[in-house]
């Protein structure tokens, strides 16, 4: 069997880029591109979860879609460890080999009201990955769906199997989405804001369920969220994204306790604290997020940075530098 050395990392992303053309007319070629994801490098260990945080438009959802290959990258490599323990680049696969890869990865979407087909029963929805992959006979699928519904807390399963999404609450629907994602025993799941549409009292239950199932099946998550507080509970490591770049990456508690990049500091300072007895630091950054359309070759954060100087203006986007204790930061001034 594979040794520890051979199972690490589970996912390895190298120089991942995705550019979307900004169309000017049907006949001319696109002159400008949105650099949605622009040179990402990261690894995810088996059984460990990485959080991607950042404001809307920073490219976190695009990254998630690239990793499950709902989008094809413009450039770069996405290595995923296959069943035999080998890292394989799936960035540009198509057809059958892509379908085989999809047995190993799944995605959970943000909105449980939109992501379930209203005309299909819960059984059809949860069993769909099995039928797409041609796995099991009907009775086997029924057993498997019942088992998964039981695991996600929709019990007794036969009371839920033949109901429709509109008969379920938001929390229950998201549990169905989780069951669907886990039914083919994936090793890697991209979860895009899976709890942001849920009510406070329901949210924690879904978060705990996801953590529990990750431990039980050894699943790794790429957990995409705008909420650092949620990321704190769901991930071992956090990458902070800004306009298509990861600007800081560190183990979760380390990042929250000792943020280094001015953008991370601003994000932390702006996050409301549910306790009036704890104060917050004032935030210093200016302006709002722009769109990364043909961005100039310098630090992406330059325009809003409180500590930027001429050096930042005249040099390309800073590389990620190792600052010790697993902490990587892309900033000339740190």
């Amino acid at each position: 069997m594979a040794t520890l050395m051979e199972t690490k990392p589970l996912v390895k992303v190298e120089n991942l880029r995705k550019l979307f053309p900004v169309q000017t007319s049907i006949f001319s070629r696109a002159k400008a591109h949105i650099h949605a994801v622009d040179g990402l490098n990261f690894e995810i260990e088996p059984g460990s979860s990485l959080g991607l945080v950042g404001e809307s438009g920073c490219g976190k959802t695009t990254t998630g879609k690239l990793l499950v290959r709902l989008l094809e990258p413009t450039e770069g490599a996405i290595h995923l460890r296959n069943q035999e323990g080998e890292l394989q680049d799936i960035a540009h696969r198509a057809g059958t080999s892509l379908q085989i890869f999809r047995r190993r990865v799944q995605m959970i979407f943000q909105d449980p009201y939109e992501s379930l087909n209203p005309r299909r029963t819960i059984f059809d929805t949860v069993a769909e990955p099995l039928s797409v992959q041609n796995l099991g006979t009907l009775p086997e699928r029924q057993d498997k769906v019942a088992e998964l519904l039981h695991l996600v807390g929709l019990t007794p399963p036969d009371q839920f199997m033949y109901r429709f999404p509109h008969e379920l609450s938001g929390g229950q629907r998201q549990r169905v989405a989780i069951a669907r994602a886990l039914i083919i025993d994936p090793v890697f799941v991209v979860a895009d804001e899976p709890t942001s549409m849920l009510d406070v009292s329901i949210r924690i239950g879904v978060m705990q369920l996801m953590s529990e199932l990750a431990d039980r099946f050894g699943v790794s998550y790429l957990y995409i969220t705008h909420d650092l507080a949620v990321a704190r509970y769901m991930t071992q490591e956090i990458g902070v994204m800004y306009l298509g770049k990861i600007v800081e990456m560190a183990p979760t508690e380390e990042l929250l306790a000792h943020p280094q990049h001015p953008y991370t500091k601003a994000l932390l300072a702006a996050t409301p604290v549910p306790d009036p007895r704890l104060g917050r630091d004032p935030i210093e950054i200016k302006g709002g997020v722009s769109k990364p359309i043909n961005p100039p070759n310098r630090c992406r954060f330059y325009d809003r940075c409180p500590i930027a100087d001429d050096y930042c203006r005249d040099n390309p986007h800073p590389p990620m530098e190792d600052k010790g204790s697993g902490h990587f930061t892309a900033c000339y001034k740190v």
Partner: protein
Amino acid sequence: MTTDILRVENLTMFYGTRGGDVRAVDDVSFTLKEGDSLGLVGESGCGKTSIALTLLRLLPENSKINEGHVWMKDTDLLALSEEEMRHFRWKRVSMIFQAAMNSLNPVYSVGDQIIEALDEHIGLMSKDQSRERVAELFDLVGLDPALMDRYPHEFSGGMRQRAVIAMALSCNPDLIIADEPTTALDVIVQDRVLRQLEEVQEKLGMSMIYISHDIAVIAEVSNRIAVMYAGQMSEMASSYAIFEQPLHPYTYALMSSFPSIKGKKHDLEPLPGEPPNLITPPSGCRFHPRCPRATSICAEEKPPFKDYGDNHFAACWHPLEH
């Protein structure tokens, strides 16, 4: 001694549906002092927005107010005629709606939309006068007055939200109700908009009611917090007291299920079950089926909304330590 600007007494409001009456607001009472800010917090469907719509008398047709009074100073808003209420809205009480940034009309410039509100409620002014007023309002909410002839699509989400706040401020209301004013915004923009609101409130001495599901946002901006559950008021106290010493088990559950980036990483405790159906709400205390402290009396009798001293109210038969 500050006076009460708003006094809501025993408000009960239903929505008629084919399945029966939805008891959206049930016997809710609270007061708001002049210049104060109250945060209404609770999960979706707990009646927070219904209260706001009742205060402004903007309820849909299938609703009926069964009981109660809404006193603003000496006027009972519920007794006003539609015409009288129309004069009241905007000038005395205005509202910032949820996702208000999408409520601007795309074919009029932002400035013109504010001028329209001014004309409608204050009366026609000269063009220069109204443009001057809009510039003043833009300045107040941190927008560059030079942008007043721009169209909504040229504004970012945060700027649109500021424009909507400017509009709510346009007629100098005594009270502003902000329903999830920052829910659709990114954290950094949210932080700025909230601070702007606080600043404007302080400057103009208005009273505010903030409505949100996010107890962290509410904790930041309100000096008093009212926690609602299933159409009823569970607890109301100063923000500090609510966090220091929650009395109602629901308040406690809400707080312990809210993740925070500050402080020690405590275990989050999920609340069992789901919010009740308000067509046939649970008997007695509506929270009792999900409450860890519930006993037989909780299912039988509705607990009174009792003052535990220092204006700390709670409706519970078995409050936490006090």
